[in-house]
């Protein structure tokens, strides 16, 4: 039996999922491969890493302080890990030292595996130092923040990437990065911390930008299909808002009644 008030959720989740999966399928079969515009922040990632390599200074990365089973920011963390894979490969290729700072213990084994695999894939497995390349700082937000700050100062990082679910430590990390002169690219779905990233980082992937970047950066071009699916569902949302507001203007509450059901 369907629970009261969940009908609209079931319908929307189902319709949106089907659209996304169809778009993904069409792209994987090369029936329709969408042209996706590149966010300036993605290009900036390579630029920042190149700059760090020129300066001979390290690249740092934080995939956030939310665990992978977080009930709100799990997607945020997953996207950050996808971007970590990209950053790690680029940094290793450019010859820069990579430092990944980790707060949630559940993210640690994943980040270790990603970075280790990236080093092996680039044929530099011996440069990966257990416990040092991927550093576990503290599961506590402030314990992590103090370590990450100290690290940025002492290592004089030249490129800093802050992705995933950061909380109130966001501005502290980003401003410290600006202080040590790092070029910074960030992203989050935490709407309260995005403003902090926007004011103190060079480029910020706002909310969905970061989640779409996770698909965009995938080595498999078919994954871009899902981004087109996202666009379709957004256009549906736009249509729902416009039609619903017009209906409300003429006195019909049918759409908001559906959304409440």
């Amino acid at each position, binding site marked *: 039996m369907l629970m009261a008030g969940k009908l609209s959720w079931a319908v*929307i989740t189902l319709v949106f999922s089907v659209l996304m999966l169809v778009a993904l399928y069409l792209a994987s079969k090369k029936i329709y491969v969408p042209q996706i*515009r590149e966010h300036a922040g993605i290009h900036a990632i390579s630029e920042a890493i190149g700059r760090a390599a020129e300066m001979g200074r390290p690249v740092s990365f934080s995939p956030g302080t939310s665990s992978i089973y977080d009930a709100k920011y799990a997607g945020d963390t997953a996207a950050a890990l996808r971007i970590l894979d990209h950053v790690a490969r680029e940094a290793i290729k450019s010859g820069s030292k990579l430092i990944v700072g980790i707060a949630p213990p559940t993210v640690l084994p994943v980040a270790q595996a990603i970075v280790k695999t990236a080093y092996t894939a680039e044929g530099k497995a011996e440069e990966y130092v257990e416990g040092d390349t991927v550093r576990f*700082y503290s599961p506590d937000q402030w314990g992590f923040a103090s*370590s990450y700050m*100290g690290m940025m100062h002492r290592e004089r990082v030249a490129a800093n990437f802050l992705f995933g679910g950061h909380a109130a430590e966001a501005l502290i990390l980003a401003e410290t990065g600006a202080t040590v002169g790092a070029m910074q690219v960030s992203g989050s779905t935490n709407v309260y911390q995005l403003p902090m990233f926007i004011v103190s980082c060079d480029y910020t992937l*706002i909310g969905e930008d970061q989640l779409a970047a996770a698909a965009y950066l995938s080595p498999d071009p078919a994954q871009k299909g899902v981004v087109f699916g996202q666009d379709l569902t957004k256009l549906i949302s736009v249509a*729902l808002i416009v039609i619903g*507001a*017009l209906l409300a203007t003429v006195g019909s509450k049918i759409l908001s009644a559906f959304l409440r059901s």
Partner: protein
Amino acid sequence: MIDPATSSILISTTLILAIYTILYRENPAFRIGEHLMVGATVGNAIVLAIFQIRDLAWRKLQSGFATGNISGMAYILPMILGVFLYFQFSSKLRYLARVSIALMLAVGLSLSIRGLIFVNVIGQIQGALAPLTNIQSIAYVIGVVCALLYFVYERRASNMAGPLPKIGRYVLMLTMGAYFANTIMGRLSIVIGTLTSLFVAPAWYLIPVAFLIIIADALIRRKGSTPS
């Protein structure tokens, strides 16, 4: 011997000031504060994790076996999966860790999906459905549509929308500016709280000491840098 309350105040004040010195520059006092904080929080987390495993898994497992309750006995599984995580370090058995990670990731992603579709998507669309009877609600609908169109990534669709995504970007920047400024009061309340605790004896006496050390350091560094 100082009583525990006073010694707590003196230690915590020293730590507060040591952490604040990062605003001047990275230095040994900050490093002490930083490393004590990491040690303390990791230690705390270990204690919590042990209690968590005991209360959430071990006790349920015990009572499960005692009463023959299957759901209780099943708590052996997450404990095995917990151990699997450590195979991460073995090059041959690494794939075992992926099973444990799959469980955690599945829980996180599905909880996020259900919550975010319900609260963010449906809740916000519903919130936008006001009758277009005044300037304000018309502006709101135009604003939210433009901002949504900013998030359209497919090139052709994005181009078709004309200047709307660009306007949407301005709307988002306005939002970001507003939300940035709106957090300030809360953050200030916290720093005011910290400062209030510093401005009472015996904590009070440590502030001038900290400032003197910083000034001395600044002077020494300046002298040191003049010859070059």
